[in-house]
């Protein structure tokens, strides 16, 4: 009860500070999501055409994914220093994996009969990709994007450990000055942001399924 009161109190007294942290958090994670989204899509498309390359690339992505996030942030400091840049790079590396994997899986799981029908009717490879493969893989790609978005938003919370902005700043400061309410208030906003983003992307998915008459 005390804590809840303290949290409400901290939101009212330091509202504009939290708002600026929230905006910073969105900016930071959105950049990473955008980079990983575009890059992941491109890599996923490229490796879907080359089986050998796919094994290697997905292997590398998996390894990156298993490195503890805090260690990855630390590893990057010698190369990109401290601050937002390092945070965005680290977040992008993590976010890449689900994007690449889902794009690849989405494209390669398409019924080969459909691809061959398209080829047999005189589609060029780019036409097959744009008009057949990507639309059919869209559902899985969207799922990947959704997972990756939620993950990036929550992981953005530890970006302040490498001197980046965002709501992690409130969490970190709360810990160092022993103010649990501040830590909690920051964490709560991250969770809310993640839930809202998840639901927005969920709507997109629902709309897609309705269009394809899959529900």
């Amino acid at each position: 009860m005390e804590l809840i009161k303290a949290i409400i109190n901290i939101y009212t007294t330091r509202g504009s500070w939290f708002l600026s942290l929230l905006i910073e958090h969105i900016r930071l994670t959105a950049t990473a999501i955008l980079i990983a989204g575009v890059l992941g899509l491109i890599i996923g498309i490229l490796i879907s055409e080359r089986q050998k390359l796919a094994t290697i690339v997905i292997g590398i992505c998996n390894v990156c994914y298993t490195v503890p996030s805090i260690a990855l942030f630390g590893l990057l400091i010698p190369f990109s220093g401290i601050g937002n840049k390092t945070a965005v790079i680290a977040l992008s590396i993590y976010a890449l994996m689900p994007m690449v994997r889902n794009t690849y899986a989405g494209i390669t799981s398409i019924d080969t009969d459909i691809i061959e029908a398209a080829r047999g009717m005189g589609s060029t490879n780019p036409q097959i990709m744009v008009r057949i493969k990507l639309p059919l893989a869209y559902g899985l790609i969207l799922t990947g994007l959704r997972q990756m978005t939620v993950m990036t938003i929550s992981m953005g919370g530890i970006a302040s450990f490498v001197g980046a902005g965002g709501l992690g700043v409130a969490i970190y400061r709360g810990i160092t000055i022993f103010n649990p309410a501040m830590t909690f208030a920051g964490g709560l906003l991250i969770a809310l942001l993640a839930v809202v983003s998840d639901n927005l992307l969920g709507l997109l998915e629902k709309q897609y399924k309705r269009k394809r008459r899959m529900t």
Partner: protein
Amino acid sequence: MDKPVIVFEKVAKNYGETEVLSDFSLEVNRGEIITMVGRSGCGKTTALKLVNGLIKPDSGDVYVEGRRVADCDNTELRRNIGYVIQGVGLFPHMTVEKNIAYVPSLTHKKGFALANPRAERGRSQFSLKGLFSPPKIETAQLLSIVGLEPDLAGRYPSELSGGQRQRVGIARAIAAQPDILLMDEPFGAVDEITRRALQDELLRLHSELGFTILFVTHDISEALKLGTRIMVMESGRVIQVGTADEIINNPANDFVRELVGGN
């Protein structure tokens, strides 16, 4: 007599150690329906895919309209050959209308403004009462040609019955007004009654539009019913080519006799 539309010349094809086709030769005349019949794995589908270049021969040549398939632009070639496959291969993310418009849309961004290739080649006698005449082919018209209600145009393939899907598959194959149709067990996945209806429909379409058709099937009665000539294959070799009468009355060997006898 016209020159043959499709010519296979001593084609051989192997997959690794397995011989899929050997010494495979055939001349297909304009307007014929050649049904290729044989057990699964006898090479009939492979032979079909040689025509639109989906499979390349190891040796020998395939000619379509006098041009060597290996030498010509396969993309262009395929757009002029209708292709219907087993399970139809309709695009699940496109409506019936979009599926049918697919091939024309590959070359023309705005879909259906097609010139009439038949007229250009001076064979306008084949265009059915201006049905395929320029500048537009209507989806609705194509649907009614294959015996479907025009209001199916907005549906997705998953909302159609098996027979309807096959018909859409045929409509899609003829949308770009090809002279040649390749059909790979197109009626394999429907019930007997629907299949018979589809066969009759195909014969009607053929007599109206005069395509040259290569039709792969494992069903001898289908082969005998549809084929102007029937080609019996076994282990990558042509056993016999002939009309239904010849196949029935003068089977080339025991295999053919057994095949027909079971009918």
